[in-house]
């Protein structure tokens, strides 16, 4: 049973290598952001498998934290690409 989880970990690592290839080579910036998003998602599943292998439940809080961080990062990057700024400040209050 343990060797099955090691094989699963290896497969997820292979797909992460593919994401890193797209992250380096991607012709435009949205390509790289999409690859980063997929990398975060693959990292979440890797943490789940590692918590089975290490036989502990303390890694499982990190799953929620990392999914929130990946989503916030994607939304911030897309807003920056779309409008050129992330936090809009109103400099002229009326």
């Amino acid at each position: 049973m343990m060797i099955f989880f090691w094989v699963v970990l290896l497969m997820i690592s292979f797909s992460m290598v593919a994401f890193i290839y797209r992250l380096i080579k991607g012709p435009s910036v949205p390509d790289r952001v999409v690859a980063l998003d997929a990398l975060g998602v693959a990292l979440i599943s890797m943490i789940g498998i590692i918590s089975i292998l290490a036989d502990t439940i303390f890694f499982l809080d990190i799953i929620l934290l990392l999914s929130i961080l990946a989503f916030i990062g994607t939304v911030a990057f897309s807003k920056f690409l779309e409008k050129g700024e992330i936090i809009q400040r109103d400099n002229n209050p009326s």
Partner: protein
Amino acid sequence: MITILANLLIVTTIVFGVIFTLVTAIGLIRLPDVYTRTHAASKSATLGVMFILLGVFLHFWWIEGHVNTRILLGIIFLFITGPIGGHVMGRAAYISGVKMWDKSVKDELAPVMIERKKQRQQQ
């Protein structure tokens, strides 16, 4: 007997998740365009990680005897936010002017963008 059945179900869900993750990797390498890559990276990656986390939840429930509701919360959160991230990224790529694949058939957003530009010039 019960343990064998539980292990079988856990292995099945995790294998489904790994297959979807590998399909995501193949799609992200082979597809020609930002928008098609967004299609690969948002839907199948989300489904793969949901299957894997479901397998982890079932493992901790049936083998270790510990019900962890945080994994269920993570599954629901990923189910909501994964497609939202892909959609927002595709929209930002279109507005920032990334070209589509030259064999693309339809671009339904182009007349809307032209009309919006006209309205902005009139104001």
